[in-house]
């Protein structure tokens, strides 16, 4: 177990920059998730930590030691790959023990450790099988067992759940998190799935275009995203954005989008701005006096049982952001075209300037 430190990491592939000015400190035993859309540089960053890619610039430290130029086989890191990367010609037991075999660990000790790791993951009955005779979930467990047995300084996971079905993914998520908590091993986990990021991470690193956009605990990022990108990336369904203008008049400021008006902190700068509101913060209007009320026509309803997702046509915002999604608790019998009055509280709203950066304290 060890801390990890990325310092000024840059990675170029010929002319294109895959990772830019990547600085990150990961504490010993921490579970950090790198999340972002495809091509954001998260896997490249992980591969540089693994030693499978060489940074163009910057240094990487593991437990205080500079490992930038250390070959991956000497880094004491274990990695679980997206495709599991099990050796097809070896049995499960041989796959799990390959690293120990190379280290020339005595056979009896290997057998003991393989049994231990396999029992931990519930695959001890599969040890003599070849990977082709395993299901996706079983392969994933073998891949994790192969990582565990090395007793590494840190685990690296590269989208390990993306090939599993939704149900299995949920249970695997819980198991990986529990396992990491039990072992206390520093973990860097790459995913493009924000649910995995939110549920597993001690801290999330949101990346876009090779750069870190924001680092924080899941709740920090959920409550206080520093940009429109982070607000849109975390949360499902994604945050609703309504484009408009900040207008000053008689010493007060308002957000204006066609006929929709929301009072703003007078300190907010004039100009084009965007309001963000999460679907779960939109409620059908009943009482709350401080709510901002707005009515819209129901366009589409997705009844999920415990909650209902309603797409509403507000008819007040510019065409590009005319539709918002509300996540309403319980079941709602709403037909398309029905008028629905909804409301949201200013304290749940987010404001972003024309560059997409969050404007703090904008709502009174």
């Amino acid at each position, binding site marked *: 177990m060890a801390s990890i430190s990325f310092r000024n990491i840059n990675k170029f592939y010929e002319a294109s920059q895959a990772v830019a000015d990547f600085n990150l400190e990961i504490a010993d035993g921490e579970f950090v998730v790198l999340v972002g859309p495809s091509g954001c540089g998260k896997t490249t960053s992980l591969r540089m930590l693994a030693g499978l890619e060489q940074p163009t610039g910057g240094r990487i430290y593991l437990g205080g030691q500079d490992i930038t130029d250390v070959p*991956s*086989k000497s880094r004491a890191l*274990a*990695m679980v790959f997206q495709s599991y990367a099990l050796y097809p*010609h070896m049995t499960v037991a041989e796959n799990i023990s*390959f690293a120990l075999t*190379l280290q020339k660990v005595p056979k009896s000790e290997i057998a003991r450790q393989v049994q231990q790791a396999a029992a931990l993951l519930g695959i001890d009955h599969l040890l003599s099988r070849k990977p082709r005779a395993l299901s996706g979930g079983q392969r994933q467990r073998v891949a994790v067992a*192969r990582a565990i047995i090395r007793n590494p300084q840190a685990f690296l996971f590269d989208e390990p759940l993306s090939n599993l079905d939704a149900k299995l993914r949920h249970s695997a998520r819980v198991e990986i998190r529990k396992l990491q908590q039990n072992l206390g091993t520093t973990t860097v986990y790459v995913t493009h799935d924000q649910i995995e990021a939110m549920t597993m991470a001690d801290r999330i690193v949101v990346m876009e275009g090779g750069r870190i956009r924001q680092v924080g605990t899941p709740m920090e990022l959920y409550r206080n995203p520093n940009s429109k990108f982070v607000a849109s990336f975390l949360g499902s369904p994604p945050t609703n954005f309504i484009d408009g203008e900040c207008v000053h008049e008689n010493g007060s400021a308002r957000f204006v989008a066609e006929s929709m008006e929301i009072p703003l902190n007078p300190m907010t700068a004039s100009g084009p701005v965007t309001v963000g509101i999460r679907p779960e913060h939109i409620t059908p209007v009943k009482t709350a006096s401080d709510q901002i009320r707005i009515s819209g026509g129901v366009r589409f309803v997705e009844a999920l049982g415990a909650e209902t997702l309603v797409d509403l046509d507000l008819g007040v915002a510019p065409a590009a952001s005319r539709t918002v999604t509300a996540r309403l608790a319980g079941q709602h019998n709403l037909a398309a075209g029905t008028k629905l009055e909804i409301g949201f509280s200013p304290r749940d709203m987010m404001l972003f300037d024309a560059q997409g950066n969050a404007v703090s304290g904008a709502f009174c």
Partner: protein
Amino acid sequence: MQLSRPMCIAGHIVLLAICLSILFPMAIVLTTAFKPMNEIYAGGLLPQAPTLENFKRLFEKTAFGWYIWNSSGTTFLRVIGQLVIGVLAAYAFARFRFPYRDALFGLVLGAMMIPQVLTMLPIYIMMAQLGWFDTWWALIVPNLATPIAVFLLRQHMMSFPNELIDAAQMDGAGHWTTLWRVIVPNLGPALAALTIIIFIDSWNEYFWPLLVTESAQSRTIQIGLREFLQEDMNDYGALMAGIIVASLPAIAVFLFFQRRVMDTFVSSGLKG
């Protein structure tokens, strides 16, 4: 498209004719090998009084045991050499980045296009200068590497999943271990196909052994067979018996590796 009946019959007649033209010479070889001397020119396909005399004469009149030993030994070493060098060179071309890599690979491919007869004379002189004339060295060393093996194995290694190689590295394997313990065990079908190609090519080679071997102790089977064709009399019975003995290893190797080769063709068809 459904062929009309007359077209179908015509097609079958053509195919049958082709089959017979291939099988008939083989049948003659097989039956002649078991015919006594006096029946060979008598006509009739099947031997009236089948005999193993021809096989006996094969070993009595020539050093056929030596020929088998030489052919087997040199072919075995050539197959091993070509596979090992092919695997190593293919890994370098597929996995390493080094200056002029593509140009060098172009040279390897270019070597495949050069007719063997053009290189024979310079290599012959080289063998003479090295004093390897009439030894196994001359039969093996000039044929220890083959561009086709490098080319085929490189293609297979380039399509080998990168994540498996990455996983091996993370498990602590260097290039050597990764190559022999992770990549090669998964190249079975390609190696089986190559083994057959190299074996048959090496086993059947005629011209080069004819040039560089002289004594009976270093001759190969294909050269040895010629001894039954003499100016005064051709011993066709022993020749045919020799052809059968010479064909058996090639057939055995083909049958042994056939299944795995078929796998290669099947999967390459699917992937293509």
